[in-house]
């Protein structure tokens, strides 16, 4: 277990500025998920923490000691790669014991640790197999096992579930939560999948364009996004956005002219966007906001209707209960409570 501090981390490859100043504190034993679209710098940040790349500027501290210039082995971290990166010529046992062997650990000690880790991961029966004879999920476990045996201060996971199919991904997500609890150590987990972030994290760090967009507890980010990017990225299905203009301090005007009693502290006449989550939109035929149903998705327990309105650039997604009767082509009225609206100014900041 260890705490990690990142101080003004910057990383450039030539003219490409990948990270533009990251400040972050990760507490002892925290499960932190870095999430963001591809190219946001989350994997680069992980590689910097691992010591596989050196930052252009800034400092990395593990348990208050500066490790910025240190080799990976001296940082006492372990990393699980997206591709698993198992040594193909070694069997599972030797893959898991490789680091210990390099560290000149006695073979009894290696045996004990490898078997212990194999037990946690339910892979005791696979120890003599080569990686090529394992399924994706099994390889994943071996990769985690290789990290566990080293008893590291910090675990790093780089998109560990991306190479698995959907069913296995759900199962392994649950496994990760279990392993995370069992290991009770600091874990940093990188993913582009906000569902993984929401379900696994103690703390989510949303990265966008080389900067931290927002960091906080999953539900904090969901309920109180500080900007449009986080609002859109966190939550599945995505938040809907409607164009609007601030009428006065207590009201906004939608594109079609409807006035909503939403208070804001922006200037009158300023263009804004309001965000509403799909579950907060209600069908109300008396409502003045009119929309046409373009598509209906029946998921069984829940129904999603995609509707078009003059107020939004994209279709609006509405979450409905499974017994709702709704047909494609139908004209409906929609409304939402002012308390469920998020308001963003033109540059995407919450106001």
């Amino acid at each position, binding site marked *: 277990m260890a705490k990690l501090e990142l101080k003004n981390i910057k990383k450039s490859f030539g003219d490409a500025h990948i990270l533009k100043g990251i400040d972050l504190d990760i507490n002892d034993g925290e499960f932190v998920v870095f999430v963001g679209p591809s190219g946001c710098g989350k994997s680069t940040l992980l590689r910097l923490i691992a010591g596989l790349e050196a930052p252009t500027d800034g400092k990395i501290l593990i348990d208050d000691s500066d490790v910025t210039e240190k080799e*990976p082995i001296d940082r006492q971290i372990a990393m699980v790669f997206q*591709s698993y990166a198992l040594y*193909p010529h070694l069997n599972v046992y030797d893959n898991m014991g490789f680091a210990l062997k*390099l560290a000149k650990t006695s073979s009894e000690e290696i045996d004990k640790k490898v078997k212990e880790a194999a037990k946690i991961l339910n892979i005791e029966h696979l120890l003599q197999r080569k990686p090529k004879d394992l399924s994706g999920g099994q390889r994943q476990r071996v990769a985690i096992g290789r990290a566990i045996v080293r008893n590291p201060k910090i675990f790093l996971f780089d998109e560990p579930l991306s190479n698995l199919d959907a069913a296995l991904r759900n199962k392994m997500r649950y496994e990760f939560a279990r392993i995370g609890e069992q290991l009770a150590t600091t874990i940093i987990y990188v993913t582009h999948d906000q569902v993984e972030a929401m379900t696994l994290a103690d703390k989510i760090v949303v990265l966008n364009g080389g900067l931290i967009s927002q960091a906080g507890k999953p539900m904090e980010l969901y309920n109180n996004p500080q900007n449009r990017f986080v609002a859109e990225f966190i939550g599945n299905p995505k938040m809907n956005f409607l164009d609007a203009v601030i009428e006065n301090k207590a009201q906004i005007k939608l594109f079609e002219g409807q006035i909503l009693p939403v208070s804001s502290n922006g200037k009158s006449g300023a263009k804004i966007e309001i965000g509403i989550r799909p579950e907060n939109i209600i069908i109300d035929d008396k409502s003045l906001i009119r929309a046409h149903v373009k598509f209906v998705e029946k998921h069984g327990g829940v129904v999603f209707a995609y509707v078009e309105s003059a107020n939004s650039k994209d279709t609006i997604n509405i979450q409905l209960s499974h017994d709702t009767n709704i047909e494609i082509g139908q004209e409906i009225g929609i409304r939402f409570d002012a308390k469920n609206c998020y308001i963003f100014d033109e540059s995407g900041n919450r106001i």
Partner: protein
Amino acid sequence: MRNNNIGLWFVAPAFIAIVVFFFGPALAALIISFTDFDIYALADLKNLRFVGFKNYIELLQTPLFWKALSNTLFFVFVGGPLSMAASLGAAILLNSQAAKFKNLARTIFFAPVVTTLVATALVFKYLLHTKYGFLNFALSKFGIDPIDWLGDPKWAMPAIVLFVVWKSFGYNMVIFIAALQNVSSDLSDAAKIDGANAWQRFLNVTLPAIGPSILLVSIMTMTGFFQLFAEPYVMTQGGPAEQTVTVLYMMYEQGFKWWNLGNASAVAFVLFLFMLLMTIIQTKFASKQGVS
């Protein structure tokens, strides 16, 4: 069945070409090796007699054959590993991120492969010249007395090894570069995290990953080096003191100098058996190392 027949038609042209131009001559040579095919048989086939294993027995009793075999084995076991080490070394250097002017260096290293052997051999003859050669000139700067590279029995074969390594390493270098570029950087990163230093990463990640290429290159190099002929033919004519007579050189002399085609064919088949044996040993060794 119908589909299989159609398939055969597609394979037939290549198959026929292989049989006519490869298996045919090889089989003919095998038959000739059991005859006393010579210049008289060329004039009139009635002079051709089957002599059984006589050619082979005589060959094994010829001192020059053993001399040629030991010269060839020296060339294979010293030159082969040297050539592969040079190829792999150059490939690793050119594959490293720090390398500058990669394309230029690759071109320079590959150039000898595509140059004419006879021309470059002649150039090397001058480079290795006792009085005017650049090599001796360079050595003299370090206070080393001139060496008669191609005239001294001790140095003639090493000089040819030097030339062949220079001429051939670029080809295998390209194969190794291709193999190295396919080594997953994740594996190397994983090994770094596991605490492996550069040498341990080379042993545990790079080497196993390029194992199949090493096997391929070692078999190709070995079979190629067993067939050393043109270089001594151009540079030393087998001399001095038969130090650069190779098995293939001996076959050439038997066949096309003395027109003992029966003898020459026997030499060719003994050489073939050696190469087959070596290939089997290499493949077995590689499969023990886990290379498939």
